[in-house]
């Protein structure tokens, strides 16, 4: 790819992303007291993360079975209150293990 095109694209991406974060953060000086808005702000991180995760997690690897395996491990460990890194890492390992098992079954049977 052309270096100039890359640098121009990089500039556009980073400026837009920066403004999306900094403008509301820099301009919002007052405390919101409205109960409705407070409620929306209370729920929004969880709804956004949920919508980003499901159903995209099912297609996050090339095998549906392996993805489901990783997802179940993540849900179980998160339910047990394990930390961010442990959950993410275990999900990745479970997915990898399932993938290896499936590949072996496919190869040798």
């Amino acid at each position, binding site marked *: *790819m052309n270096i100039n095109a890359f640098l121009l694209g990089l500039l556009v991406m980073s400026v837009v992303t920066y403004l999306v974060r900094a403008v509301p953060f820099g301009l919002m000086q007052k405390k919101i007291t409205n*109960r409705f808005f407070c409620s929306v702000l209370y729920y929004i991180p969880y709804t956004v993360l949920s919508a*980003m995760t499901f159903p995209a997690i099912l297609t996050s690897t090339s095998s549906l079975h392996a993805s489901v395996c990783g997802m179940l491990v993540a849900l179980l460990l998160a339910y047990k209150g394990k930390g961010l890194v442990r*959950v993410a890492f275990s999900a990745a390992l479970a997915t990898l293990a399932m993938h290896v098992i499936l590949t072996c079954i496919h190869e040798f049977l």
Partner: protein
Amino acid sequence: MWRRLSYESERVMKLGFKQGLNHGVPIAIGYFFVSFAFGLTGSVEGMDWWQTMLISMTNLTSAGQFAGMKIMLAGGSLVELALSQLVINLRYSLMAISLSQKTDAKFRGIYRWILGFGITDEIYGVAAGQKEEISRSYFFGLMTLPYFGWAFGTMAGGLLMRVVPNVVLQGMGIALYGMFIAIVVPKAKEDHHVLKVCLLAIVFSGMFTYVPILNKVSVGVSIIICGLGAAILGAVFFPIAPIDDGELPTVEDRETVMGGDQA
């Protein structure tokens, strides 16, 4: 005398730079692995390692970067690139507004304009989970290690592309989602309203993935519609208790975010 001393030392216990650094460690480790996957994907699809690393250093987003890289590689227009970033990253605006309600008196003006760069899903999630007000030094500490984790993870992924066997990649793609699950599930377990609202968001998101016509809507737009839609319905049907001093309630307990990793 002893009582008085210990009482005073407890009073000055405020969340500072060091606590921020400390709370950033698990995020940094997670980011290293996720951005490793980004750097790797970038190299596979034809970018140099320093290009993906520059993207990571100037953007600090996950979904936005992936989309932006794909558009650049496909030779998309700058307008398309700008719009994609605006839509996919608009959730950070909501998080920025939410965080602006939790900052202490000194965290304003130029500090907001500089440190606002560090608002990501996880950094916001941890900051929002603190019981105390967020100081600029704490927030700076919190974003520092994740920033380097994100940058160097991308570099490692880009450079090691040829060394890492393809099968390892199969596990990488799910790591980011695992992290999201680890943020949402403990809160949903604690507050059944959050559980219901999240399930609603998932139903919406499923519709935008599988229902014809709706599945033509771009991922960024659908995430905003699903997330905002479910949160608004949540606010209508399960409004949170009114707050007298205008302070947002704790969004999540630090213990639930850090969980077992916290000694």
